[in-house]
């Protein structure tokens, strides 16, 4: 068996995956451009903000010319958009005058990554372990409780869960803050500030984690119960492996395949944030930026958010494809 042939196949496969991701990204950008051109509203009019009666048509024309809106949509405007986007220029916000969309996004991104990232880590580690165990001991007490609980959590709207947590742990018990990301007046960067930030993070992160954990439990459990019924598990038992060895050496990796897909696809949403949860907790992330932009019809910001979301989903898919090749030798053929 020629290893170089295998290596060639692998690099061809990776090349194909990356190329597909690039094409998808380009299509996401173009669709994003078209979407914001077909929805009603004239950017020049919006820029001059409500005071339309006082604005002469010459002034509007001047604005249109200044922003290139007088030129044809295709190809001039779309090419402008694509080349600016490639340079990282996402335009200026309507709502926050003079602020770059890219700056706004970068400003809000860390809070969202902290919130959803922490929530995902908790949900993945707890959910997958619970699901694997429930599937391994299907029909046991852990399985019954985990499956029932997961279904209930999965079905619960996260904004409602968030409000319940706020009422119980913040309003009634007063243990944790239920609003914002920091207490006012704290000195950023200090250890006290970090502790304060983490205290603020507990409730929203728990809400997001509980909301997505159910998915992981159910998928991991289903994957594991399929694996348990496989013939190679009987082979493993016949070979004299203990139950624990069977789980770790034969069942776990096979059961991980569908779980890894779900995990990496969900990573795409780390950036998109949890819009409803951020709104409930007034968490200063991408989610609340989106809601604010929607209310203010701040199209450039929305366009930037959509592009960010699309891009992160494409990247997550890319990682899922690559990870799958590492875990399952059948994929690389």
């Amino acid at each position, binding site marked *: *068996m020629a290893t170089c042939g295998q290596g060639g196949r692998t690099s061809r496969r990776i090349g194909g995956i990356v190329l597909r991701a690039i094409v998808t990204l380009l299509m996401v950008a173009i669709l994003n451009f078209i979407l914001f051109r077909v929805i009603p509203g004239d950017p020049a009019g919006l820029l001059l903000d409500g005071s339309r009666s006082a604005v002469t048509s010459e002034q509007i024309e001047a604005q249109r010319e200044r922003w290139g809106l007088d030129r044809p949509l295709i190809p001039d405007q779309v090419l402008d958009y694509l080349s600016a986007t490639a340079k990282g220029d996402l335009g200026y916000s309507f709502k926050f005058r003079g602020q770059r969309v890219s700056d706004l996004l970068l400003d809000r991104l860390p809070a969202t990554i902290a919130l959803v990232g922490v929530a995902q880590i908790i949900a993945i580690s707890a959910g997958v372990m619970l699901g694997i165990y429930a599937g391994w001991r299907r029909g046991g007490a852990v399985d019954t409780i985990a499956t029932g609980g997961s279904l209930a959590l999965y079905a619960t709207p996260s904004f409602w869960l968030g409000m319940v947590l706020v009422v119980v742990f913040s309003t009634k018990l007063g243990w944790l803050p239920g609003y914002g990301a920091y207490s006012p007046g704290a000195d950023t960067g200090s250890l006290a500030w970090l502790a304060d930030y983490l205290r603020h993070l507990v409730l929203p992160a728990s809400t997001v984690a509980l909301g997505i954990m159910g998915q992981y439990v159910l998928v991991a459990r289903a994957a594991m119960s399929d694996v348990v019924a*496989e*013939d*190679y598990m*009987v*082979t*493993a*038992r*016949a*070979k*004299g*492996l*203990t*139950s624990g*060895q069977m789980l770790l*050496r*034969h069942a776990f*990796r*096979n059961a991980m395949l569908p779980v890894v897909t779900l995990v990496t696809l969900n990573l795409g949403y780390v950036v998109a944030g949890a819009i409803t949860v951020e709104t409930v907790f007034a968490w200063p992330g991408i989610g609340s930026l989106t809601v604010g932009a929607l209310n203010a019809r701040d199209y450039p910001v929305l366009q930037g958010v959509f592009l960010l979301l699309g891009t992160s989903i494409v990247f997550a898919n890319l990682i899922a494809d690559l990870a799958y090749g590492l*875990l*399952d*030798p*059948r994929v690389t*053929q």
Partner: protein
Amino acid sequence: MSEVFRSASGQLLAVDGLSVDYGLKGISSRALHEVSFDLQAGEAVALVGESGSGKTTTAMAIAGLLSTDARVTSGEVRYRGARLQIDDDAAMRPHRWTETAVVFQGAMNALNPVQRIAKQIAEPCMLNGMPREAAMTRAKELLELVGIPPDRGTAYPHQLSGGMRQRVMIAMALACRPSIIIGDEPTTALDVINQAQILKLLVELRSKFNLALLLITHDLSVVAETCDRVMIMYAGRIVEDGTVAEIFAAPKHPYTRLLIESIPNPAKRQRVLRPIPGDPPSLITRPPGCPFHTRCPSSMSICATQAPALESTGQRRVACHLHSSQMKSDGVLVHA
């Protein structure tokens, strides 16, 4: 076929009055009903029957691999004279693979799809304390033994053909030098050419390592080429037991006779298959009498009420009222 000298000293495995029930939500069905037989060292025995006849349950019981919904209701299995705790996973573990190994249907999914084959072959050796390096060397030797180039050990199961995967299963079964190999339909999913090659390999390896082979199959034609003795199972019971020559030349039980007649014979230019009419009885309600009497062309009135015992004459055993000693002496052969 070599005639194996049958004696208590040569006895490797004894199954004595074994009954196994499967219970599901309060409904229990009897998969095995007082099954008794023994296996001599180096002997090749076929266990033949249709789906649901209990042949796989018998094999799994011997290997201590019954599923959790199975219950041993009576009888025992002895290995070299010592009772096996076949329903105790932990107690069976040291016995597994080192004494009794199983060749599953490797062509299907019996190999782990995400593990290289050499590692899977080496695994039972390492479990029994062999260092990793030595176990991998052994895996390569075993691959060579079953006719696979040793450097294919880095392959994953999906990279091999069905026949090759079956060879891997056989190599794996030999890993810990067991005394008994159970072949659970080892050639069922293969084409005829591969089937013949795998059977030939099993026969060769059996004589080379003096293995006892218990071959589970529903295919009588496989039996003739591989085994010394054949046991016919029907509805969880052994209905006939004898040497391959005896059974094929003069089947005593009507079911055995019909099974043999149902094998298509090209020499006779026979155009129509001759299936056995009817279905096996329910294992849940277990109607009285001989389990085969509803399908039996020689059924008598007694067959519907009284189950025949498995009686032995020398090495030959048969459970049928037609051949029952009591019937013959009483002379009450009343045809229904």
